């Protein structure tokens, strides 16, 4: 049976992902995030734009849905500051409402700038970096113990791979051969302060490091949903898989791209208009 989003009930991925439809969706998500940015003084726009395609392909191409609209598979946003992209996708699926997003970061609402376990569609309370992969490993292990076919997808920032706790989790997931765990590193090369490739050269190489920890690992263009889709579809499934997604922080809006200030700034009215124009004008 087709679960309606690129994956059959039996767990096998369909061998297709429509890149044109994906680009349109991502355009709409970015537009919606910019819209939300006008409600609040600060919003992690650039970190969300960096993992827009990653999050899109998981929700729209990979994870299986139940009839009540919730998902069988688990999506865990370890880079909690990027969660607004997840919110707008959960809004699309009806797991969150427009009202939820209208009330983003207000006392009457239930959505904050970091995801909170208990909110529909949210697998863990993150925000402090370096926590998500350990939790995801525990979730994947529990599913393995239950002999379920649930896969846990964990989106991580590259910065949190500087946390020792992430490497503890890498080693344990490798030890336990968690073939039902897929990590997706949003490798935009920026930590809060500087480029990894300049300030932390020993951070690279990544694929070889992950492999040395007992993971399968590949590198893909993180803004190419189809490439991510294929990396997941073709995974071996005996070991955890890390997909190093090469991304651009702030992708889609020229003045935000690779500009550290946009880690946490909301655009003013003029910047907002320009952002919308660039997104609408992009190939979709």
């Amino acid at each position: 049976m087709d679960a309606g989003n690129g994956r059959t009930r039996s767990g096998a991925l369909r061998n297709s992902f429509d890149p044109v439809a994906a680009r349109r969706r991502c355009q709409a998500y970015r537009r919606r995030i910019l819209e939300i940015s006008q409600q609040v003084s600060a919003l992690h726009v650039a970190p969300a734009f960096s993992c827009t395609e990653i999050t899109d392909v998981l929700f729209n191409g990979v994870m299986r849905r139940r009839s009540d609209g919730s998902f069988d598979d688990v999506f865990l946003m370890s880079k909690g500051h990027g969660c607004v992209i997840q919110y707008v996708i959960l809004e699309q699926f009806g797991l969150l409402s427009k009202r939820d997003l209208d009330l983003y970061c207000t006392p009457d609402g239930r959505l904050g700038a970091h995801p909170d376990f208990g909110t529909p569609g949210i697998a863990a309370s993150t925000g402090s970096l370096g926590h998500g992969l350990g939790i995801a490993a525990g979730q994947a292990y529990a599913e393995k113990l239950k002999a379920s076919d649930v896969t846990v997808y964990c989106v991580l920032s590259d910065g949190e791979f500087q946390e020792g706790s992430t490497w503890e989790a890498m080693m344990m997931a490798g030890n336990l051969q968690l073939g039902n765990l897929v990590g997706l590193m949003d490798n935009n090369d920026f930590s809060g302060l500087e480029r990894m490739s300049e300030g932390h050269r020993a951070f690279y190489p990544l694929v070889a490091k992950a492999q040395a920890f007992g993971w399968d690992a590949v590198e893909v263009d993180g803004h190419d949903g189809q490439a991510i889709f294929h990396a997941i579809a073709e995974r071996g499934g005996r070991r955890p898989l890390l997909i190093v997604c090469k991304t651009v922080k702030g992708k889609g809006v020229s003045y935000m791209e690779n500009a550290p200030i946009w880690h946490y700034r909301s655009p003013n009215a003029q910047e907002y208009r320009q952002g919308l124009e660039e997104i609408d004008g992009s190939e979709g």
Partner: protein
Amino acid sequence: MRNRFANAFYELGKNDPRLCIVVADISPAGSIAKFRTDFPARFINTGVAEQVMIGMAAGMAQRGLRPFAYTIATFALYRPFEMVRDDLCYQNLPVTVVGIGGGVTYSTLGATHHAQEDISIASSIPGLTVIAPCDPAETEAATRWCAVQEQGPVYLRLGKAGEPDLSKEAPEPWAFGKLRLLRSGRDVCILSYGPIMKKAFEVADRFAALGQSAAIVSVHTLKPLDRAGLGAILKQFPRVVVIEECAPNGSLAGRVKELAWEVQATCRLDAFTLRDAFIHCYGSHEDLLAAHGLATQEICAKLGLG
């Protein structure tokens, strides 16, 4: 205590397939080794990696399992502190963190292995239940409670091995969140928890030798504290003594003093805690307690018991 915990856990785990134990390179004592042999998939050793021990326990609980994380108290609570706080407490997950060798139990190993402020630190985290049984029997009762409770995370602070049974003659059973009378008395009430409870008995005996009848109460649940029960004791007894193996800031002693003010108690109140200091002393557990000013003789002298 360690062995009674292990036996109780094995028995519970035999009947509840949700029970798992996640350890961080601590050698599994007694029945835990048996649990590992009989249920290998439910025994996970993360190695010398306590952050992932807590993180995995959180994820396992979110997917329906009931994990216990288990290692030496300092490494169970201090090393992965933010994981305990964020992963377990913020998310309010039913995970039991078992800290072995609370206080200065590991008396020859130095302060790196002394969980001498664990009760204070654990009690300060919102949503974290804190339990410190005084003997093997209380350890078993607490373990049974932890295995089935649904309310959230627990820090279960244990001693090591070989502690005497102190609660055998207690007129009351162990009940979560309730003070437990271990010995009745009229003139003085001694409050304590954990293995240092044996000093409460020694001090009570000294009171008795001088013709004063001392009650002994186990404050095994440090959070939530049985405020009503403590308030009643502070009003009822002319004299109250706190003896605990924890540094004074935020420990039971301080909280009893706060409560005494709130209930306008008029009793004499004496408190004996570990010192607010790292001491560079190695020896028996008793030697370490003495170095912290907790030799029974010194406590008695300060209480005017000669």
